[in-house]
């Protein structure tokens, strides 16, 4: 006696969260059944393996049918075929778009293209995440990217509106889209110690301050015909950053800056002497990063540069985080007292964000 057909359809669509997780994790029906058996569900419920198999198949089929709708979450809300309570709909969507930390670190900043898709095999082997799950996560990134790429308005809002994600997840996706668009390098060995959270934090700061959107929101130029976009860095701003070079190119200015910082921090830093000796190097590093951002290539290397030019030197001198914070604050503020320097606003826009990023990036 073999089963040809075996289905269960409820007026309210039954969603088993555990099975959904297994499905999202890319397990085959048989693997999922085996995993469920191992979880002890048979003993708890007194069911047989056959029942479990049939149940798993059913749920998988349902998820498969729902997947098409999950690709455009508003459709899930308006469709009539599956009657799903709103809380469950939210759960389905949220879980579907949730990604693995290990996976996102592999893909973050890469172009979301076919080429990268081909690398998924390797990523799967490396991370231990099933290929199926890698594909889903990759396709999610790509889908969100495609939809919001050319859109005006707040990136997070756009993502939330079109994918109905929670605030937290929408912010993460905003970071992913932002990184993919600007192709920031995140895969270098020296960047391996950084988590997705670190990058997402930086991305958020950069979106808030360095993009066209950040300018557009300012009431100063309401007539601007420029696209109000969160995904692209403000080209004009990057161009202007060249002006900061004077801070290190002008020897007097650099010395003055150094003395201002040293005076203010004397006795407050445990690594004062190291700071004093390194000041010019650090300042040069930070200002040069800014000046180079006109080139796409250097934009991509932003994080590599920051780690190389700032995080690593400080770390090798064992600066405590509190000292880094004090230093960066003083370093930024002191510029205001430099009489010969005219680009205060520009400096604040640059350094405000950079300070936040650096503090986040500064850990082991």
């Amino acid at each position, binding site marked *: 006696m073999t*089963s040809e057909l075996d289905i269960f359809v409820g007026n309210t669509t039954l969603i088993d969260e555990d099975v959904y997780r297994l499905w999202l994790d890319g397990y085959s029906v048989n693997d999922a059944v085996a995993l469920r058996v191992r979880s002890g569900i048979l003993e708890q419920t007194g069911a047989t393996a056959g029942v479990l198999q049939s149940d798993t198949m059913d749920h998988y089929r349902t998820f498969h049918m729902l997947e098409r709708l999950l690709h455009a979450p508003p459709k899930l809300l308006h469709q009539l075929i599956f009657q799903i309570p709103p809380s469950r709909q939210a759960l389905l969507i949220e879980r579907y778009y949730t990604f693995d930390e290990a996976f996102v670190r592999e893909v973050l900043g890469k172009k979301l293209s076919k080429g990268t898709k081909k690398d998924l095999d390797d990523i799967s082997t490396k991370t231990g995440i099933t290929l199926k799950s890698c594909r889903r996560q990759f396709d999610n990134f790509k889908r969100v990217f495609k939809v919001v790429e050319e859109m005006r308005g707040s990136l997070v809002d756009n993502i939330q509106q079109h994918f109905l994600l929670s605030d937290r997840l929408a912010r993460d996706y905003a970071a992913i889209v932002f990184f993919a668009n600007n192709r920031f390098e995140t895969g270098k060995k020296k960047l391996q110690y950084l988590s997705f959270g670190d990058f997402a934090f930086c991305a958020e700061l950069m979106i808030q301050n360095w993009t066209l959107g950040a300018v557009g929101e300012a009431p100063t130029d309401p007539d601007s015909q420029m696209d109000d976009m969160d995904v692209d860095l403000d080209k004009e701003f990057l161009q202007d950053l060249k002006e900061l070079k004077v801070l290190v190119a002008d020897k007097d200015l650099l010395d003055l800056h150094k003395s201002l910082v040293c005076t203010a921090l004397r006795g407050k830093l445990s690594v004062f002497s190291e700071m004093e000796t390194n000041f010019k190097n650090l300042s040069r590093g930070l200002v040069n990063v800014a000046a180079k951002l006109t080139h796409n290539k250097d934009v991509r290397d932003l994080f590599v540069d920051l780690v190389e030019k700032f995080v690593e030197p400080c770390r090798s001198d064992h600066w405590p985080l509190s000292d880094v914070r004090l230093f960066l604050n003083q370093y930024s503020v002191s510029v205001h007292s430099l009489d010969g320097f005219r680009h205060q606003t520009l400096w604040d826009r640059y350094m405000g964000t950079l300070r936040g990023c650096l503090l986040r990036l500064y850990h082991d």
Partner: protein
Amino acid sequence: MPGKLKVKIVAGRHLPVMDRASDLTDAFVEVKFGNTTFKTDVYLKSLNPQWNSEWFKFEVDDEDLQDEPLQITVLDHDTYSANDAIGKVYIDIDPLLYSEAATVISGWFPIYDTIHGIRGEINVVVKVDLFNDLNRFRQSSCGVKFFCTTSIPKCYRAVVIHGFVEELVVNEDPEYQWIDRIRTPRASNEARQRLISLMSGELQRKIGLKVLEMRGNAVVGYLQCFDLEGESGLVVRAIGTACTLDKLSSPATFLPACNSPSKEMKESPLVHPPSHGCRSTHNSPIHTATGSRLTQSFSVSVPTLIYTGMGSGSAGKEGGPFKALLRQQTQSALEQREFPFLTLTAFPPGLLVHVGGVVSARSVKLLDRIHNPAFVGIMGNTRSYKLLDWNSFNSDEPETRDAWWAEIRQEIKSHAKALGCHAVVGYSESTSICEEVCILSASGTAAVLSPRFLQEGTVDGSLEQRVEENLPVGCGFCHIPYDELNMPFPAHLTHCYNCRKQKVPDVLFTTIDLPTDAVVIGKGCLIQARLCRLKKKAQAEANATAISNLLPFMEYEVHTQLMNKLKLKGMNALFGLRIQITVGENMLMGLASATGVYLAALPMPGGIQIAGKTPSDGSYEQHISHMQKKINDTIAKNKELYEINPPEVSEEIIGSPIPEPRQRSRLLRSQSESSDEVTELDLSHGKKDAFVLEIDDTDAMEDVHSLLTDVPPPSGFYSCNTEIMPGINNWTSEIQMFTSVRVVRLSSLNLTNQALNKNFNGLCENLLKSLYFKLRSMTPCCLCHVNFTVSLPEDELIQVTVTAVAITFDKNQALQTTKAHAEKSLQRASTDNEELLQFPLELCSDSVPSHAFPAAKEHPESASSNSGTPAAQRAVTVEKASPMGDGNFRNRSAPPCAGSTVGVVKMTPLSFIPGAKITKYLGIINMFFIRETTSLREEGGVSGFLHTFIAEVFAMVRAHVAALGGNAVVSYIMKQCVFMENPSKNQAQCLINVSGDAVVFVRESDLEVMSTQQPAVNCQPTCTGEVTT
């Protein structure tokens, strides 16, 4: 011309991409009714077109309004080639035709294509303007309300129950016409869907006319079925119970409601169907059927069984003049009707007096070929299509079918008579067709009814009063209706354990729901008998003969299984019994489902005793005694499980409960408690020897084993196939209706009856286990109205379809109330008995349940509201439901507006919604869909295909209900699910027919809020009044 139909096409959404180049669609809509078609403009390049059309107006007569569906076709405009159809929506506008139902149909409908399934949605608004005034309109059959619900709908009151109405119409099946060879599958499917829609409309209209003739205004328990007879045609038949109903909010209209239509009827030309010529050929086929060409067809009538109580007993002398009087009067009321049948399974208080037992009849027929390969070239979509039907060519067709059914009904009637009953309740009819053989089945419960509802104002007032004074205590219906001295069969009777006055059988089988006033001990459970019988493949008459020879054996065995399983559960009555016999190419399947309960009025069931035939063998004896022990243990366990602890009754009344050692000559048999005449048990089966199973028969052993392998549901689960579960009355509002389908392929090698039985048993048990597993998050819960359907689509395929609803209940509270209630009713029983003694002898000689009986309080719906549930506890139940989302439901009396999120529509096979009050019936939902695929693998194989289709059917039902302004479907039933596959060709086809009543319900918690805010809520006070009085 009584009506103007107005249709507006608002918008579409989620349309499929029809133009691959642009990834967009240029959609427009055709709106068609009858022969008139309107078109919207083409909305270029959009998947979410906003047509916002003008109002398309159709001027039509009411007959068309009843028969025709509104047909909406969405197409993709193509400049150079033919426009591509995206899909269709059929809207039944019947609900707009009665004054109390919906006034507008408005909402998003799924656009359905028989090949691609649902492809987007369309927003439509439909209205009907009636030219004539309401009063005049009501006289046409349009005004008759239809209900699938097999009880008096919740917000109505029965004024008169007129009785049985039936009708059938026949046509050729478009699938089997020559043109089908040259048209596309889509065209063929659509022709079929449309035809069936037309036929259902026509059938409903004709039934409506009959109801008006009977001076009724509604059909309750309306059951419409299709017989796909293949080459010989398509039969659509329906049965129902004509009633005069009164809306509870307007209690003043007692008589005028039923009198006025009848008076004016004669003046109205509309009610004379012949004036419309050919379209109404058979308004009263019963009268003309006799002497029709029955001889043409081969027909075998199968001996029929009468299931009743068994046993023996001394004859009583009661039966006095009152009983006779009552009977006389009811009889005269009923005898005016050809068939005193009611399709109801639950009754207004006081209607059901006695229940005799189940009566059923089956007959095997050979389907005729249609002799005219009728000229149907002009199929098309025109009206003439329909006019071509039997009228001109095979006018004898419906008569043949009518005659077949008339014959069966006659048989049922005579069975009922033999049981001393003048009526049959819980009546239903079904067919099973395989190739050219057709088994027609009918079954019901023989009953004695009180005349109260059966005649208009003819009941003698004083008699009625006396009936009411003569309060029975929830046991009256168990009392035997037949004369003890002159029983139709040998039966084992005892004094009623409840009132101790009347005689009751030791076991009672019925097809109805458990009466609300019945006193039940413990909980009930689903009991199934399953059976397969191999049959040689044969042709025509030989085949029919073979089948009819097998049938009695199957019936007997099904009955034995049911009886044994009932005893094994320690119970003594079956409700909702439904026996389905399915015929296949090489086998017959029997599946009986019922809900077992322990009725306090009936004697305690005896155990089951096993005995060997050769007692000399020691080890054998041991084996037998081992088995016996196992059985006894199971019974004890079941009694505990279902909380069956009947109170001890003194022996002098019941007789000795000690098992009779005399029965050892049988392997397995039910044991009677009474001392003498035990051997007369198998009364209804003729010679019992023919069915005795010998002990050395391995089959017999298997039977015992299979009896013991039925696993009880896991803890926290109960199941029944009736509306409610006796012993549980504290439902929460969390419900989940579902359909589950399984098809298994039998290995064709060495099929034996035994192996088949085992397979079939395993299939059903596994299916149940799967359901329990899937619904485990809802525990404690009860699967109600569990409805199994078996079909044999191919040689080695068995298809089982189950539809049921899972309802959670509050465990602690449920236990309390049950106990309290049981105690209360027992108490009441004793006091009432004392009171009874004070009446003159003639009055207490019989007892009739009265509508004033206070036990009506235990009615499921009212249980939580009226029996004083503390508000805090109710809050808990509501909160509990919310994780499922149903709790978040927002009450919508108005149709959903475009763009809003989809409102929740509940579906349930029950006639009520727990924790809610039905405030309005919006009309009947009766939908037929065909789905076909030529890319089966791509759609996920057979499972994927059917899963999608059933989900789509649910969606379309919900959308129609929502568009009517409703938020639930009650009495939902999937009447047909015919699935055919051809995996080698990558093809499959499925036909599904569903029906139910669209309603508006208001959650009881909301109702309270409303009533405190505005005390003049229309229906509520009266509803409550009805339930408590």
